[in-house]
């Protein structure tokens, strides 16, 4: 055995020292040597007699390490993540745009970070003003006058929106309406939300043009007497604007239903097109998509809803009002028809601050440019890749473009392999296998914060992948990625024998 081999064996990944260059291995906190003092040195509590009325808790089994070890642990873990600050992140429908650090700085001002939601209103006028102004901006941009900032995420906004619709129907004696129309291309959250609200879903079929048609809509609508509403994403999840949306929303309204618009794709419209003007009654806005609040590895998000005057009485509380130079929160006592509370306190306030800072920075002119550059970028990528990948629906697209693995799949290389090849070549993949209405979908959303140069580099990589795939080196593709901190993960094992926490015996 050579010396090199000995080192490799001694420094195996199992020993958690299998480092190479800037690739670091790292064990879990519980596997580190126990330090006799913690990484925080608060004053030592005196041994007073307890007034808790209960016995004192014994050993918990928490790990204990010093501050330098903690910092190093998490910094090393961080190097295993890809992020928008690393590079292009073309994840369709997720709007991975630049997250300005100004927003972080402002959210951390003590007046925002260390204010309590139950303080007397006169001591938090600045915080209430932020919320009020955000309501005003969202209302103007969507053309929908009622705004509630309480929902904690996009899916929570959907819940708020659909419960608002349900509440409105009940108030008007239309509680028997129990069916919600959902296109087959919808986000999974849409049908899940409808069911949680006590509704049954009925599918609207997407046509071969990737859009809803008046015929397919009418077929799903029937006589409309049992329809509570429809949940439609526009632009839709194929990246296309629903060209018949005015006629469809008119038919829906005539039948007594409400139009819920999933706001995931609002980045295509912001500052340029108002959803209220194409028939939307209620819409959630993902502040973490369109308005740049960081995704944070899966939250916190924020999903305010915007609604018509007709629906405004029914939306959740609280909302912020402004009278006589004073801002205050309105609750059920002033809005008795409201569906009530959906989250503790006022919502993800820290995200409200960040979103407002972003909107003020862009202004009306900048936001319109956001939409235009986002749409331009997606169409540019489409134009450059349409000869290398199958394009299921004719363009132009909106802020994201849809490709599939047709033609490559036959060579043994599928969408998942293309995604993993992108991981190998230093990119986060696009959204894959969504929407479900096309096989092997690849949904690419560049956002307005990518330069042409960054998109050109991505296009070059995609073209190379397509060429390699055409040459049929399937085995190579099936083992991508190779240079990442971990290679392909065994997801079947994870689900069959779930290990969801560290344990001493493991």
């Amino acid at each position, binding site marked *: 055995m050579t010396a090199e081999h000995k080192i490799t064996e001694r420094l195996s990944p199992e020993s958690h020292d299998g480092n190479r260059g800037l690739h670091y291995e790292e064990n879990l906190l519980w596997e580190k040597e126990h330090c006799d003092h913690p990484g925080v040195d608060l004053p030592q509590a005196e041994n007073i007699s307890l007034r808790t009325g209960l016995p004192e808790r014994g050993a918990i089994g928490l790990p204990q390490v010093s501050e330098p070890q903690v910092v190093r642990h998490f910094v090393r873990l961080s190097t295993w993540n890809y992020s928008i600050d690393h590079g292009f992140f073309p994840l369709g429908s997720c709007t991975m745009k630049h997250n300005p650090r100004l927003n972080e700085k402002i959210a951390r*001002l*003590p007046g925002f970070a*260390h204010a309590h939601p139950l303080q007397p209103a006169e*001591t938090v006028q600045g915080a209430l003003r932020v919320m009020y102004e955000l309501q005003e901006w969202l209302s103007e941009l969507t053309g929908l006058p009622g705004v509630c900032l309480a929902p904690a995420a996009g899916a929570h906004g959907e819940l708020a929106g659909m419960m608002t619709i349900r509440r409105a129907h009940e108030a008007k004696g239309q509680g028997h309406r129990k069916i919600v129309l959902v296109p087959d291309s919808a986000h999974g959250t849409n049908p*899940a939300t409808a069911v949680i609200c006590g509704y049954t879903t009925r599918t609207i079929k997407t046509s071969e043009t990737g859009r809803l048609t008046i015929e397919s809509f009418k077929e799903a609508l029937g006589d409309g007497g049992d329809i509570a509403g429809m949940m439609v994403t526009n632009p839709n999840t194929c990246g296309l604007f629903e060209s018949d949306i005015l006629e469809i929303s008119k038919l829906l309204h005539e039948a007594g239903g409400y139009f819920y618009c999933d706001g995931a794709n609002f980045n295509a419209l912001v500052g340029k097109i108002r959803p209220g003007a194409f028939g939307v009654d209620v819409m959630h806005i993902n502040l973490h998509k369109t308005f740049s609040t960081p995704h944070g590895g899966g939250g916190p998000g924020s999903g305010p809803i915007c609604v018509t005057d007709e629906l405004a009485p029914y939306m959740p509380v609280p909302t912020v009002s402004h009278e006589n130079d004073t801002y205050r929160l309105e609750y059920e006592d002033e809005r008795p028809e409201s569906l009530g509370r959906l989250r503790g306190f006022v919502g993800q306030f*820290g995200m409200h601050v960040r979103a407002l800072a972003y909107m003020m920075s862009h202004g*009306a002119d*900048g936001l*319109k440019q956001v939409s235009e550059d986002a749409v331009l970028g997606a169409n540019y990528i489409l134009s450059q890749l349409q000869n290398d990948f199958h394009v299921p629906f004719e363009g132009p697209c909106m802020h994201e473009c849809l490709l599939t693995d047709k033609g490559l799949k036959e060579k043994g290389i599928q969408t998942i392999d293309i995604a993993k090849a992108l991981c190998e070549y230093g990119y986060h993949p696009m959204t894959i296998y969504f929407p479900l209405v096309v096989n092997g979908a690849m949904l690419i959303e560049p956002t307005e914060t990518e330069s042409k140069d960054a998109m050109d580099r991505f296009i070059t990589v995609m073209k190379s992948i397509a060429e390699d795939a055409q040459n049929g080196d399937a085995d190579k593709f099936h083992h991508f990625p190779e240079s990442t901190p971990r290679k392909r993960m065994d997801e079947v094992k994870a689900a069959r024998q779930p290990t969801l926490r560290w344990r001493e015996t493991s």
Partner: protein
Amino acid sequence: MRYLPQTKESRKSMLDAIGVSSVDGLYKDVPGAAFIDGLADLPLHAGELEVERTLSSYANENHAAPDGPFFLGAGAYYHHIPASVDHIIQRSEFLTAYTPYQPEIAQGTLTAVYEFQTFIAQLTGQDIANASMYDGATATAEAALMAMRLTKRSKICVGNALHFDYRAVLKSYIGNHEEAAIFDGEPDEETACVIIQSPDFYGQPHGYEAWRKKCDETGALLIVVINEIISLGLLPAPECADIVCGEAQSIGIPMGFGGPHLGFFACREKYVRQMPGRLIGETVDEDGRRGYVLTLNTREQHIRREKATSNICTNQGLCALAFTVHMALLGEDGFKNLAKLNHEKACKLANAVTEINGVKLLNESFFNEFAIELPKPSKDIVAALADKGIIAGYALDDNQLLLTATEMTSDEHISAFVAALKEALS
């Protein structure tokens, strides 16, 4: 327009490549009536300095907890956050990453959240925990829905004083199920679950054995709600519960005027397939090296659509990371010391205020929060003290006031509060 990299030239060259003369040619499917005429009726773009100046002036209109003595809790708590916590969560790799759908390039987030799940399971004395929830109120509502699915029953029993927001959110969520109902008191044979908050809304800690027995007799599940998670460093763990959920904001996350906070959700392993929310599990990669992935997603909306256990799509990722970093810094001794320190400060505060004539302690026992009775309406007292820069607590009905002390409370704060309270009562 500092966030936009395109130039006039790059825009033109892209339009040429696409083959349209202007960007409006790309919006041809949009009906004319939907376009904003010109620009939206909003201010134009503003420079970084200008935005910072404006929003700083708003922030300065608020009274912040560090500005003076602060005794308000009631579900959101003012605690010390070590500097390293904010440093770590502002690292680009954590802050600007997406949900870890591609595990090969997201092991950082996945490993940290796996550690979060372990911390929550240990603290709650439960088998497993999920990757976090929006907040304590929604976690409690989701717990009740889960109990309804598991027991196929639809009555929710609230056993003691549950936080008013949690109860309101529970009511809204349950309202979507026509047969479901919430009631106070004791479980019967139709009860899906009993919800016990400890310490309860008034700060009173509770034992669980009697409730466990009632649940076993009726077949209801026992849900324990914790909204001051630091209490778990001093009070017994709710090991006998079926589900433990609540709010973990106290560790690593500022009050932030109500959010983002950090809901948590733990339960017994046998219920895992009915759990809401994201789960991270251990597995191996192609080379057999240990790693982590999002798992059991056949419960979730993107696979199950209308049959999902919940419509939740994310967690509070970055808040869960802040919690995990803070817990790592605290360690076993630091966490227990922090809990004791909180209790000690509350004992000092209770001793000091009950020396005032006419002020009565209402709790038999407490952790870091308790209710007192005053000889005057508490709303008036809170307003009078706010004028003096003291945030006096949460005004309950009539003459009752809910007070909180934490490790942030100094002896000087307590003296200043007692003096101001005496004056306001005189």
